[in-house]
């Protein structure tokens, strides 16, 4: 079994050592450096999640990934996620197909409905159409990925008649995943359309998603498709010791979850809930390299998944803290997790 390990960021706005927020522009330049450094540290994938807020100023991750592509050679680069519901699938395909060209075939795309919903009002979409938007657009995206002229008609964008969509890829479709947060019907849809499955696990015991992973493989069989990989995306922070990692991460986590709790339906974090989530039965990978590697290995096994993407960073952490996280993740966590899984 081959396992791969990635890092994801939402462009979490950095602070300086005194806790003063850096500009959006400096945060974005720092993400470029982090992506380049991730390759040097031995990370397999670097993903950028689309967000449109002051604390996640990252609406055009594909541009940032293009900059990273120009300075790297091996690392795969992709969205994590691209909010397909409020975008044009043709445009998303074109941007990532362009990234695939720049990077010499290293592009991937993880598509989501958008559990962060700030893009809907921004681009004039109605949240009540959330489901239909994603379903139609994911169906069209699956067609676009095949290459060749596309004929498509739906309610959410203009029809396409035998339309050639460029740039063509050089060697078939690039890897494409659908991000799922707990809706089993989304799992079945990913299988029906032939996307790989990305499980976004951001709270509670990760192994509760094991039936979703089984559902995905069974649904692939039902639709006559070959097995496809499952990845796990979860937040975390790696530092030299458990204590240091928790001390750095906890206030940042508390602040951001408190801020989005009303919109997302999260409980306000307490020190107790944080202990739960960072413990062996929780969804946060916060700790020393050993702690995080063990947890990754256990959960990849439990979920029959072959890729783990750590969503690193949190608004208010410093660029230095993030670089240390990346270094420890690449040099220590990944080799240990690989060893535990072998």
């Amino acid at each position: 079994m081959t396992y791969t390990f990635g890092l994801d960021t939402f462009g979490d706005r950095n602070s300086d050592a005194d806790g003063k927020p850096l500009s959006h522009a400096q945060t974005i330049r720092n993400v470029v450096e982090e992506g380049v450094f991730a390759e040097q540290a031995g990370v397999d994938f670097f993903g950028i999640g689309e967000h449109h807020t002051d604390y996640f100023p990252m609406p055009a991750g594909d541009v940032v990934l293009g900059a990273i592509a120009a300075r790297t050679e091996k690392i795969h680069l992709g969205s994590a996620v691209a909010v397909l519901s409020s975008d044009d699938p043709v445009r998303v395909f074109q941007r990532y197909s362009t990234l695939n060209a720049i990077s010499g075939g290293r592009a991937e795309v993880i598509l989501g409905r958008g559990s962060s919903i700030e893009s809907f009002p921004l681009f004039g979409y109605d949240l009540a159409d959330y489901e239909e938007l994603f379903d139609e657009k994911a169906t069209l995206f699956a067609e676009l990925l095949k290459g060749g002229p596309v004929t498509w008609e739906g309610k959410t964008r203009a029809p396409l008649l035998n339309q050639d969509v460029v740039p063509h890829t050089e060697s078939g479709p690039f890897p494409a995943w659908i991000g799922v947060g707990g809706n089993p019907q989304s799992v079945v849809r990913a299988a029906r359309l032939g996307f790989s499955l990305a499980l976004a696990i951001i709270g509670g015991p990760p192994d509760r998603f094991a039936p979703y992973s089984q559902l995905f493989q069974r649904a692939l069989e039902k639709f006559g498709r070959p097995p496809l990989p499952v990845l796990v995306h979860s937040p975390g922070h790696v530092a030299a010791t458990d204590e240091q990692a928790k001390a750095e991460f906890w206030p940042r986590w508390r602040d951001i979850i408190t801020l989005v709790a009303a919109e997302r339906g999260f409980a306000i974090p307490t020190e107790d809930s944080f202990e739960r989530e960072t413990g062996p039965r929780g969804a946060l990978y916060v700790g020393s390299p050993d702690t995080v590697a063990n947890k990754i290995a256990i959960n990849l096994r439990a979920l029959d998944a072959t890729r783990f993407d750590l969503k690193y960073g949190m608004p208010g952490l410093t660029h230095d803290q993030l670089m240390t996280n990346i270094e420890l993740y690449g040099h220590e966590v990944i080799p240990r997790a690989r060893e535990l899984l072998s």
Partner: protein
Amino acid sequence: MSELSRLAVLGAGHVGPVIARLAVKAGYPVTIATSGDPADIALITELIVPGAQPRWAADAVADADIVVLAIPLHRFIDIDPMLLNGKLVVDAMNYWPASDGVLKAFEDDGSSEIVARRLTGSTVVKALNHIGYHELEDRARPAGAPDRRAAGVAADDLAAAAAIADLVDRIGYDPVRLENLRAGRALQPGGPVFGAVLTRPEFEQAVSEDARSFT
């Protein structure tokens, strides 16, 4: 009680399967349905809610004593009220504009009061709406567990409230009965117990101090 009520869960998204799992675990006969063909959710039922039966919505409801509405609120507007006529209905839905968009029909009054006005032939109880789907199963505890969490039950009909309080208790939560459906506004998004982890005394206090419970 020698035989438990028959439960029909409408909705196979985030919430429905979790409630259905807990009910199966508690020993209830459970069916699950969407607006479509039960064949479409056969695999989901087999793997995510083993022990439940996928059925057409009309058949599931016809054979059920209790119907749980676990669908997005904007889809509720499409449901024919006659489908639920004469049934005890648990409204586990939420009106949550920040997450799901604005629905004009739900801008005034509590969402369950609006649901009840639409379902004139049904008895509506508001319950199981205020604990996140990602926590509902993980937080469930047997009666008497020290860290058992409370869950609200609001209804105008006392017998209906008692029946659903029993359901809530059996699936793993300390039921806290609110005075009527209107008082159930305290269970809504933005209210004092929505998404909160509270024991029964904490829950009772939070609800009693909340202005939404009065007037």
